[in-house]
């Protein structure tokens, strides 16, 4: 069977397009072809142009950068007076640009007197003045870059400038507070916390949380006062971050109000409750705060990760009352991960030779050989806390082993060096 094309009547809907191109369609296609051709030409010209320009720039910048690096290190470490102004005055625009880039790298790496000397190079390059201008008049990204430069140069601008121009976003607030922290201003904690947490703050990036932590480390009082006053009004993500800062603070906070931390244990958001427990871990010494915590209710939290963090917090407290509370709740905890968290804290506090003992129906926990818990009743051999304990014990052993080997390696290195 074959089809004779000439005998086949064409369906009316197909013929206009497939057999002949009407004028408008033909013109449309021609227009599309012209537009597409122009676009193609533009893309290829721009792409190759960019590539050529980038290659040319690399050819010029790479050797210049090496020369500048050498000169920079020589002036920084090889002379009593680096004479930055004199050097900078003789540099071309490209060299100044490349030197700024090098300065950015070294300012992030160096501390102390070397960083102070490099900051003077920044002044010689006029970076500080330019940064102030950009904060005052620049756009969003200009301001952000300017704030980074001022932080690297440890050069704090006027508070008014920061407060009026740098509080639009959490990122800007953090960058502005960072400048104060880096410059070590007297009002770093007060002004920093104010910049970060005033006027309906939103949650921060990790950089923002780190900045909040740094300014609170300088003086925790403004931070605790602010949080105690505003905590309940914040979104859970910001609450969590404030609690995270508290967890890591090492500065003595005196008589600051910390009741909000205990209050956060009742938050409807499990992640806030978890963070509150971890924060409380740092305050085992505070009897007043501890008295506000109902240890017997730990096992009642429906979320396993919250219970696990509660065990970790109590493990950080580390006293008999806390470990007894862990033991009491964890051995009946239905979640394996929470049990492992509890076992890890118990192992950390009591060592591997002192497994928890408790009565279970038809069985009894006893210290098994090598300190691993076992049960006397065969029917209870699958008791999950035994598995959690064994797991935690083994990992604690490996942690010690790896650290001992690292310490021994370090000692040998010291011997070789010494």
């Amino acid at each position: 069977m074959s089809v004779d094309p000439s005998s086949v009547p064409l369906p009316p809907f197909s013929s206009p397009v497939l057999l002949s191109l009407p004028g408008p369609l033909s013109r449309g296609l021609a227009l599309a072809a012209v537009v597409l051709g122009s676009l193609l030409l533009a893309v290829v010209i721009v792409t190759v142009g960019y590539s050529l320009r980038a290659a040319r720039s690399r050819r010029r910048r790479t050797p210049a950068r090496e020369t500048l690096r050498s000169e920079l290190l020589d002036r920084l470490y090889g002379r009593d007076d680096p004479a930055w102004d004199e050097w900078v005055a003789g540099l071309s625009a490209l060299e100044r640009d490349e030197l700024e880039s090098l300065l950015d790298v070294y300012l992030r790496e160096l501390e102390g007197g070397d960083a102070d000397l490099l900051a003077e190079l920044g002044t010689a390059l006029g970076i500080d003045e330019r940064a102030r201008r950009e904060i005052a008049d620049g756009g969003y990204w200009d301001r952000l870059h300017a704030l980074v430069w001022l932080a690297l140069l440890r050069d704090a601008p006027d508070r008014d400038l920061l407060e009026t121009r740098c509080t639009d976003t959490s990122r800007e607030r953090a960058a502005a507070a960072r400048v104060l922290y880096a410059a070590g201003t007297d009002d770093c904690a007060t002004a920093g916390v104010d910049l970060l947490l005033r006027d309906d703050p939103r949650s921060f990036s990790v950089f923002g949380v780190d900045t909040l932590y740094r300014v609170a480390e300088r003086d925790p009082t403004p931070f605790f006062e602010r949080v105690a006053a505003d905590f309940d009004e914040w979104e859970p993500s910001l609450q969590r971050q404030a609690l995270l800062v508290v967890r890591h603070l090492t500065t003595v906070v005196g008589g600051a109000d910390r009741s909000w931390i205990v209050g956060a244990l009742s938050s409807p958001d499990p992640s806030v409750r978890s963070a509150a427990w971890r924060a409380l871990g740092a305050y085992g010494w505070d009897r007043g705060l501890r008295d506000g915590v109902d240890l017997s209710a730990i096992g009642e939290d429906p979320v396993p990760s919250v219970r696990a963090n509660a065990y970790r917090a109590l493990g950080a407290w580390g006293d008999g009352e806390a470990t007894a509370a862990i033991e009491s709740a964890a051995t009946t905890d239905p979640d394996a991960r929470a049990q492992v968290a509890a076992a890890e804290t118990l192992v950390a506090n009591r060592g591997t030779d002192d497994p928890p003992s408790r009565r279970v129906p038809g069985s009894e926990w006893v210290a098994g050989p090598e300190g691993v818990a076992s049960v006397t009743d065969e029917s209870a051999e699958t008791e999950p806390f035994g598995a959690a304990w064994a797991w935690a014990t083994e990992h604690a052993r490996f942690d010690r082993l790896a650290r001992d080997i690292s310490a021994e390696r370090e000692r040998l290195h010291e011997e070789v060096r010494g």
Partner: protein
Amino acid sequence: MTTLGSVATAVIAGSGFFIVTYYLLINAGYLLIHALALLQLRDNVRESAWKPSFRAFDSPFYPGVAMVVPAYNEATTIVESVRSMLALNYPDQEIVVVNDGSSDATLDRLVEAFGLRPVDAEVPYDVPSEPIRGVYRSAIHEDLLVVDKENGGKSDALNAGVWLTEQELFCAVDADTLIDRDALLDVVAPFLEEPSRTVASGGTIRVANDCVVQDGQVKEVNLPKTGLPGVQVMEYLRAFYSGRLGLARLKGLILISGAFGVFRTDRVREIGGYRHDTITEDFDVVVRLHEHLSDADIDYRIEFVPEPVAWTEVPDNLRTLGRQRRRWYRGMIETVFASRRMFFRRRYGRVGTVVLPFFTAAEALGPLIEGLGYVLLPIAWYLGILNVEFFLAFLLLTVGVGVFLSWFGVFSEVWSYNRYESPRDVLRLLWYGVLENFGYRQWKTIVAWHGLIEYLRGDQSWGVMERRGFGSEGETSAAAAAAPVAGARGDGAETVADDSAATSGFVWIDWLSEAPDTDGIRWLDRVASDGAPGRFVSVADPAVGVGDGGFVWTRDFADGVGDGGFVWMTDPSDGAGDGGFAIASDGDGVLRLVETADFTDGLGDGGFVWTTDPDLGAGDGGFVWTRDFAEGTGDGGFVWLVGAATGGDN
């Protein structure tokens, strides 16, 4: 006749209209996505240029990341890979290597290199994976954990790693992927920026062929010298710098490469981990995260970060590339089908209303429709209903748009991160953008149709992925040449194919058989590599032979454990590989099967070749590998018996 002709013409003409309309809409969609990608890239470049003045290693707030590395038969590369990962710049990092039932010395190499010792305790969690045989920790590196488990495939291995880490984030990474030293710091950027909302973040995968690799790091970026990898460089640039950036701009990123992606550990556990019954687990897990988080009404974001780069070796021959692309295609169809309830539902945001439908229309149906067009064209021309002028204009426009989209990807790379520094390389990339439209593109439509057929037949194999490995100073390392794709499904015969063994029976059989079952491959491996004399013997019990199965005759290849079987043919090139097995007499007059590409070497007028279609053979069926002889049409089957002097047929 007239009526039949009218119907045929109407169908073809209607199809023509459909194809033209379809292409206009799809290309408009692509152009929009690429334009959005440019905006996103501009923002990303700005973001990455802003580096806040704090040190990651001094901050206690960086989230911990576990690098989860599935490893299946990675003995030649695993130690170097782990060393490379241990050297990554990141303040809080753990490496979890999951040995997925490797049949080679992967675990031994790790034990030896890192002083691994078994953890003398049972895993206390219920891990959704094949049984875990043991957990090992390093006496040297506190942050290295090795999980040894029964083979279950890449998804299964990933699940074991995800369940055994306590880190907040995990990074799924292939064992043979090279990761830039700072890539982990970069790819977690969305988690640093919005710690509460971000659940996943993916980086860019680039092509490592012909790059200079030293100490597990790409030291010099080179464009591959040959065309096929070169075209893939351009494809990768287009996919990552245009496609994924555009989808990210739409808040609809649905694919994060399995070779390098970071996820919130708890969120992936919430959805039950990676699915075992899919072969593109990376695509599937991201779509299911979208589904789960939208169902739970959780505010989230899934981001793509273009700068962190992981490097992978791409296939340098059409056969391997075809297997890879067919697998991708089957996985795509699987995931699209599995997520069908999300389509056109506002509950799933732009993912449900725009991205998934567009993705399905463009990526899943596109190649099929294009392939259909290539078939219809000559028919329309024969029937006289093809307007040549229109066809040429249409062809010019579609090719032009294709070239434009490809060049857009190249431009994005040059404009942003400019890793291909030589303008000459950039010109070559642009040329590849033109070249792929003539031959390569058409070949991909065939691959898509082939993939669709495999999907409809329920094929779940991974296919053999031959890699040459990353050599130092740009030279191919013979030692590394055996690296298979990471964590491949064992039942998909992701097997070693090293150059040193290129002439051996095992590797040749491997290539020949496309993607047979691993057990069959291992068994054949012993036949070829042990050198022990033996022969095929007809028996009723498969357990008596070498290996845990044997061959049975069947008319339905689905009876076997692989995706095909051996049929008798006169022309070895008709099979899936380059040759087959002919019956030949050795010096002692014993008949044996020998591998050959020339059947005139053997007795009779043909030999056995591997194929997925039993109808191709001269008989009405063929031999498939099985562990249960009841699957076959007879009462027994053939097993290889070492030392057998007599027995059944060879």
